[in-house]
């Protein structure tokens, strides 16, 4: 039990939240890549000294939940942190995938270690076989990018130049990556100074106590809201539709046992790990499941260890949601971060129809391109992922053109995009007819048409190009995602044009200048008979 009065607890909780919000602002305002600064593909959180999450910012659900794994590893590896230390890693088996780099700073107030400020964000390039990542057909984790083992980036305030130099020597965009890394480091520094001012006002013990109270507060709200969901067993299955190199389909089966104290998630029966990067590690799959649980119970509760403690996940080893080294997992944030939570929500679609609803486009539709920019003569590397249609619910129509509900990513303005890359966007519009019909229609996806102003090499890692977003209660399915090329006036589905095994997983296709790459994102399923 906290020794703080309830009013002081609330004051400290508010301060912790505004601190994570400032971390977001600092990162966005100073980062170099549009992935960070326009797309908001990063997340921030505060942890206690034992590595338990205390407060998270807006951001990407799979990032945040995965930090649970990364932080336990950091605490174990560096048991005696010093002021000014900053730790870094992108080991995919500790968090998500190599592109997401974790930066963690132990926070000290008046000489006492009080917790950690952490930023995890998606670097536009981390080396590997595909520029900008997204090699849909890699078969070994090292092909997906440099792995930064858990390291010190700053040692008691001094930059470890060897670490920095090693990283920047192995990426294609050293300046962008450095600028993004500095924005992450700045965000953690800002957080430490905010917590120091909190300690100056209320004292170090109150800060530590207030962090623990924040966890208990979330737990209390979670348990209270949990009562509104009937106890029972809920089951669903969904699929990763292909692996890019074989004819296999990969079912994801979940059996959810909901009780008065939380959720037991059993993924027994889920497919074995795939040879290509459609897999997730256990840590990132569990993070994705956390997002579903929060959405089901009460999306307004501050998310932290108080909720995570009430979720138990059981998975046999080496499945598509518990992949192990050296199986690639690069697609975990693109696909499994959407597929796992949707499968869980699908299990509750008839029980809580206003907070679950029909299927969404549920893919990042991630694409990465490289080209020699004719204006500069230099290699341009881009990476992007796309919004689509949200499924309709009992409460109303699905939103058109939004990123998946487990994240607060933003689109990158076309005008900014065109300044950076040799691409002319001919069209960015709603994809009419893509939302499934229903009493409430599903949200429409979007259409992006990229006219290539230079020869491109393109890699892609998407899914849900064959299996449509489902409808609920008689609602019709939405249209699935689709990638096509218009070449010399003829539009052909990309996989067909290149004779690919998969329409959505490939590596380094050559697209000549003047091709138009057409990205159509899926619509949400409808709710109720139309």
């Amino acid at each position, binding site marked *: 039990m906290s020794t703080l009065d309830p009013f002081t607890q609330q004051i400290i909780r508010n301060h912790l939240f505004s601190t994570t919000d400032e971390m977001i602002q600092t990162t966005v305002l100073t980062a170099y890549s549009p992935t960070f600064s326009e797309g908001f593909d990063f997340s921030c959180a505060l942890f206690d000294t034992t590595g338990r999450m205390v407060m998270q910012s807006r951001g990407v659900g799979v990032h945040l939940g995965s930090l649970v794994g990364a932080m336990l590893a950091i605490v174990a590896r560096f048991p005696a942190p010093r002021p000014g230390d900053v730790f870094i890693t992108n080991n995919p088996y500790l968090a998500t995938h190599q592109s997401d780099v974790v930066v963690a700073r132990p926070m000290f107030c008046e000489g006492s270690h009080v917790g950690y400020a952490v930023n995890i964000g998606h670097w536009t390039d981390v080396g590997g076989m595909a520029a900008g990542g997204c090699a849909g057909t890699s078969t070994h984790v090292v092909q997906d990018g440099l792995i930064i083992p858990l390291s010190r980036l700053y040692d008691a305030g001094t930059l470890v130049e060897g670490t920095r130099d090693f990283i920047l020597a192995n990426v294609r965009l050293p300046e962008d990556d450095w600028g993004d890394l500095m924005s992450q480091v700045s965000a953690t520094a800002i957080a430490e100074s905010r917590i120091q001012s909190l300690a100056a006002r209320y004292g170090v013990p109150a800060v530590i106590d207030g962090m623990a109270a924040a966890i208990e507060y979330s737990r209390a709200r979670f348990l209270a809201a949990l009562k509104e969901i009937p106890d029972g067993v809920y089951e669903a299955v969904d699929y990763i539709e292909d692996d890019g190199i074989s004819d296999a389909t990969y079912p994801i089966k979940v059996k959810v046992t909901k009780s008065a104290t939380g959720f037991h998630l059993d993924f027994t029966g889920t497919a074995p790990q795939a040879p290509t990067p459609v897999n997730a590690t256990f840590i990132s799959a569990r993070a994705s499941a956390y997002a579903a649980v929060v959405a089901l119970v009460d999306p307004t509760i501050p998310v932290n260890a108080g909720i995570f403690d009430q979720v138990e996940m059981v998975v046999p080893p080496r499945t598509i949601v518990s992949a192990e080294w050296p199986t690639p997992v690069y697609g975990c944030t693109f696909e499994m971060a959407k597929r796992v939570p949707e499968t869980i929500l699908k299990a509750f679609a008839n029980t809580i129809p206003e907070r679950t609803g029909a299927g969404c486009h549920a893919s990042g539709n991630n694409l990465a391109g490289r080209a020699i920019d004719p204006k500069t003569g230099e290699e341009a590397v881009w990476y992007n992922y796309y919004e689509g249609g949200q499924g309709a619910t009992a409460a109303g129509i699905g939103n*058109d053109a*939004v990123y998946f509900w487990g994240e607060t990513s933003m689109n990158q303005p076309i*005008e900014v995009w065109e300044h950076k890359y040799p691409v002319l966007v001919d069209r960015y519009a709603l994809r009419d007819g893509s939302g499934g019909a229903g009493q409430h229609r599903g949200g429409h996806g979007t259409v992006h048409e990229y006219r290539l102003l230079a020869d491109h090499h393109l890699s892609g890692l998407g899914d849900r190009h064959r299996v449509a977003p489902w409808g609920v209660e008689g609602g019709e399915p939405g249209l699935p995602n689709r990638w096509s090329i218009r070449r010399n006036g003829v539009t052909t589905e990309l996989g067909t044009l290149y004779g690919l095994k998969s329409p959505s997983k490939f590596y380094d296709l050559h697209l000549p200048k003047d091709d138009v790459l057409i990205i159509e994102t899926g619509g949400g399923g409808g709710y109720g008979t139309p």
Partner: protein
Amino acid sequence: MRARSVTAKQNSKRVGIDIGGTFTDIVVFDEATGAVTRSKTPSTPEAPEEGFLAALAAVGVPIDEIGTLVHGTTIVTNLILERKGGRTALITTRGFRDVLEIMRATRPLPYDLAWRKPVPLIPREFCFEVDERIMADGTIETAIDPANVAEVVDRIVALGVEGIAVSLMHAYLDDRHEKVVEAVIRERAPHLAVSVSSQICREIREYERANTTVANIYSMPRVRRYVDALAARVGVPGLVNYLSSEGGIQTGTEAADRPVTLCVSGPAGGVLGGAFLGEQTGRRNLVTVDMGGTSFDVAVIRDGRFDIKNTFEIEWGIPVKTPTIDIKTIGAGGGSIVWIDNGGALRVGPQSAGADPGPACYGRGGTDCTVTDANLVLGLIHPNATFPLDVAAAEAAVGRIADHFGVSVREAAEGIYRVVNAAMATAIRQMTVEKGIDPRDFALVPFGGAGGQHAAVLAAEVGIPEIVVPNMPSVFSAFGMVSAPLKVSRARTILKPLAMLGPGEIAAFFADLTGGIDASAFDGATSAPRHEFSLDLRYVKQAHEISVLVDPDWTAAEITEAFEDKHFLLYGTRHGHAVMVVTGRVAAIADMPPLPISAEEERDDRTVVAARTTTIAGIAGEVPIYDRTTLGPGARFAGPCLVEEVDTTFYVPEGASARVDAFRNLVITTDGASAA
């Protein structure tokens, strides 16, 4: 604005009118006598011009005695929030008609499937495309065809719209295509209003630019009707001027052409009042805090000037890029509702009881506990000051909170007071310490109906040593409008690396930008306008800019140094990488004649007599209440005490000392003040 006649008496009155959602505040300053009159009357949201005239009637000022009238209004914000703007259309580039529907494709919070996107200001069926395309490097990829535009305009006209917004891709680089569209509209449909993105918001990012242009055209029909109605009712052409979001006086014409510049018109008045107070009393550094019924606004005046920011969100997802005084707003006011969430924690706001039914103690049927109820229970407001307050109702409302925590009613009220103070203190810190500004060099200027009950504790909490409570704190925004300068600003995207700009190129750019400002905007000023120049700068690879005040004749090295210093101050890093010049801005500012408020003699021998006493439960016990109208310049007294005036109460805590200055401002020093 109207040329001023110099004949005294005849039009010696300067009037500020601030129409808010609940009240219309008016302040009249008589240049001939120095006398100041004020009034607070109910607003009439359905026909704001009625409330405007009622306010004038309440102070009994004949129109022909008014020399200058400045009006602040929430009309634009309200009509956008309520989606009560005009029937308007958008013309954009082929391929981009859904720019308003798509927005930035994001959501305010993850995990919430029930959340719905905001409704765009112009529905999809009213968004049209024309064939044309300018590329990012300025190349014209598809030239515009007036015949194609004419066909589109004719289709729009057939829909019976009142106005058309034009926002084409990369028009911030090159406005020629937009000019063609504008010319075609004016030729084929001269009765329609037009807003063009390169004139309203010449900045990169297609959604934000389009939405700003759309917000402008969407609000224009109603704002123009309002401006015309006021002008007709007042009967003197050009008499009514408007306060812009960046704190300058605009003519009715400018306001009706660019209504989007009025979004923060009201709050801007309070900051101007703070700037005036600083000048009057020789203080260069002030933090203004405006606490009303629903919100708490913080602004910083540093070395005599306030910062301008260039993006404002009217609601989540509906951004407007227009110069706005940098004001931080949080949802904490006297009417903020106190509640217990399902985790058992105390929450304050953002819901407000407003003025109707208002706090429980208003006795108008409200039962929710509010901040004002807690303040009444604590004794920070006297129950029989402005109108009788129902203490029993307040105690019952706070009592429900107390029961939840198992504490006394007084302890619960103290807890509420502490939680709301901490939230406000955080907002002040974010505007000061967290931007590298040391609050110990500042004075706090509190105003608004609820500001006085919290200011002293906030000052102690953030380390501000001095508080200056202006005269008439509850109508201070209207007072600020009287003191406003004339101000017109313009901005244009440059988007070139600093290293690529030749010597003299920035000076030439600013000269050109300044030349676009119509000199007639400064009729009535005491002098020719002065100019403030700023550049929005970033490292080449960054996406977001920092606005830096510059001298047009600075070298690239001087500009770089100013940018890197500010970057270091805000974010703690200095990268030494190349700098991009994104946007150049000029503000032309000309002063109105000074307000001849004269200093009175401060006398040490003034007697200070308490009107009565009250009890501040749990904080200070029995304390005196002073009537502010009886406190002459030089009067001194110590806390704990309350100072009452017509419609607000100021709490001076123990350890603080108070003095009335030569302008009858109440100056409080908080050294050693005990924060409750």
